[in-house]
């Protein structure tokens, strides 16, 4: 299988879907000649023209609003919001409009649209260009929330998102864009609501998404030499959430650590804990469930502070050791 980057995998999904279905178009800021802030749509203007690669003014609410209107007429818009932080500008269109229409109109409207949005810290972009706001979107019934961690998943999940009849928030961690991975050639999709066991283990379950999957894997591989066998579950889609995979894993290992970059308070780690503690897995727990998350701070600019604001490999390692030893 060829190795391509996460950004190339996303572009490849967009490209193939636009070739396959003339209803698919992309709308967003600086997505033409510039190729988007992270280069994802590079070359697409030349291939598909400005009627299908629609560059807009800086008007985030109306970018999503336009996608909603087009979706209502049977199109398959893919909107790009340059940084996930700017979703806060378009929250009415995402939360009050796109998310609600199917229900509010008694099942008679469908809003098949995808909103792509780069998330996460690590680029020194500070408080308004570095957030991980997936929990905010998970709280709105009607939305689906996807956080791919590898090029393979980015492509397969994006294709599924474009085929889905609901509004899908597709969250791309910006530090992953240049990471490489194997991606099969040709048509494949990854179903929503199916978690992936990124590493099988017997001693402790880690549930992590996006870039945290990679950090957890690096730590788990190191600790394996010491005989600590960690299982890593990547939910891939937070809505719908594969609760069975998590419950099964915790029932096996008896220990749970959730790792996400999003802030702690009301973050989705709490949701996972609630799922586990009200399931059969509760009986198998032999340690308190723990979460390691972004701190409850705006992402700072300074490199030292920025690093301190979100979980790092050494934090994950410390947490794992604490849980395994039973010392917190």
């Amino acid at each position, binding site marked *: 299988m060829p190795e391509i980057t996460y950004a190339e995998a996303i572009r490849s999904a967009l490209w193939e879907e636009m070739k396959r279905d003339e209803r698919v178009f992309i709308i967003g800021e600086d997505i033409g000649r510039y190729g988007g802030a992270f280069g994802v749509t590079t070359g697409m203007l030349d291939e598909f023209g400005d009627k299908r690669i629609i560059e807009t*003014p800086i008007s985030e609410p109306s970018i999503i609003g336009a996608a909603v209107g087009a979706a209502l*007429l049977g199109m398959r818009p893919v909107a790009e919001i340059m940084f996930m932080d700017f979703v806060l500008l378009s929250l009415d269109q995402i939360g009050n409009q796109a998310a609600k229409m199917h229900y509010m*109109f008694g099942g008679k409207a469908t809003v098949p649209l995808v909103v792509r949005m780069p998330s996460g810290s690590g680029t020194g972009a500070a408080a308004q260009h570095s957030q991980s706001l997936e929990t905010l979107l998970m709280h709105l019934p009607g939305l689906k929330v996807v956080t791919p961690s590898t090029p393979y998943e980015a492509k397969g999940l994006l294709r599924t998102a474009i085929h889905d009849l609901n509004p899908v928030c597709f969250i791309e961690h910006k530090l992953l864009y240049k990471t490489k991975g194997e991606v099969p050639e040709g048509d494949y999709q990854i179903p929503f609501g199916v978690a992936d066991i990124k590493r099988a283990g017997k001693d402790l379950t880690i549930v992590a998404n996006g870039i945290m999957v990679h950090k957890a894997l690096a730590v788990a591989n190191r600790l394996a030499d010491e005989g600590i066998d960690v299982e890593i579950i990547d939910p891939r889609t937070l809505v719908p959430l594969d609760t069975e995979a998590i419950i099964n894993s915790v029932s096996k290992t008896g220990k749970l650590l959730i790792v996400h970059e999003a802030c702690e308070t009301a973050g989705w780690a709490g949701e996972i804990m609630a799922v586990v503690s009200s399931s059969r897995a509760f009986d198998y727990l032999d340690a308190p469930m723990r979460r390691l998350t972004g701190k409850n701070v705006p992402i700072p600019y300074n490199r030292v502070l920025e690093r301190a604001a979100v979980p790092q490999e050494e934090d994950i390692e410390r947490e794992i050791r604490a849980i395994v030893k039973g010392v917190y």
Partner: protein
Amino acid sequence: METEKNQEPFLNRAERLKLSKDELREMYKTLCTIRQFELMADKLYALGKVHGTMHLSAGQEAVAVGIRHATRLDDYLINHHRGHGHFISKNADINLMMAEFLGKEAGYCKGRGGSMHIADFSSNNLGANGIVGGGIPHSLGVGLALQMQKRDQICIAIFGDGASNEGVFHETLNMAGLWKLPILFVCENNKYGMSMAVERVSAKLPIAQRAEAYDIPWHYIDGNDLLTVIETVGSAADYIRSGNGPVFVEAQTYRYFGHSKSDRNLYRSKDEIETWRLTKDPILRFKNNLLENEVFKAEELVVCEEEAVKIIESAVEFAEASADPDAATVTEYVYA
């Protein structure tokens, strides 16, 4: 304001606009049907039969009927929260509307939406919106889709004076003007956003002149004069359908009822309301024109009025006989 153009006699205008006698009668009946729907909604609320809120459009009927007559039935409609009149004009099934108003499973949205969210996608009625201005940017996507699908319908985006101060209003006008999208923007100015007088929240009036900044032709018209609405909207629709881009029409009108059920009309005088009712009422003006010009005899119009009452009464019967949704279905329709 462009009103009753050059005081041209009613019959000449009607003839110039090619309005047949049947069409005039039908429009009169629709005006009355809307008024009766709103009066009935108010009555049902007073009787304690309405669970939620409502935003009544009595006094604004000519805008709805005029737009509908001057456009095509298959044009797309994006509506605001005070939208009963526009639905009725667009040939909505009034039984299903009333059932939705009363929250019944038989309603347009199976009782999930209520008064603020009536939609009928089978007739290109894309729904009302509970967020002021929330539907305006949808018109961009509808316009883009119509262009991409190479269709000749237009999108009619209707909103109130209050919505014109939302950011999406300006964003949408900018993109629509820039891309020459097939959108008819109609600002239905009923003088108040909830309690706030339009003069107190607008740096410059009329609202329609804002369209100039976005290179969109605009008109500020008497929205209570049916033939003026038909004439302006008709020529705007032709202009848009010919590929020239959007047009903005501000229709000056007035609502008789309060903003919603909580409104005690503390921000306007009884005199003001009565003056509009007695001297500028859109139905009364149209009726007087029809009678003074002997288009119809009084008893012919009474027949229309009685038919309107019957339509609404039977809609209430239908709605009241309909079942509530089953509580077990509460989580249906979250996802398609």
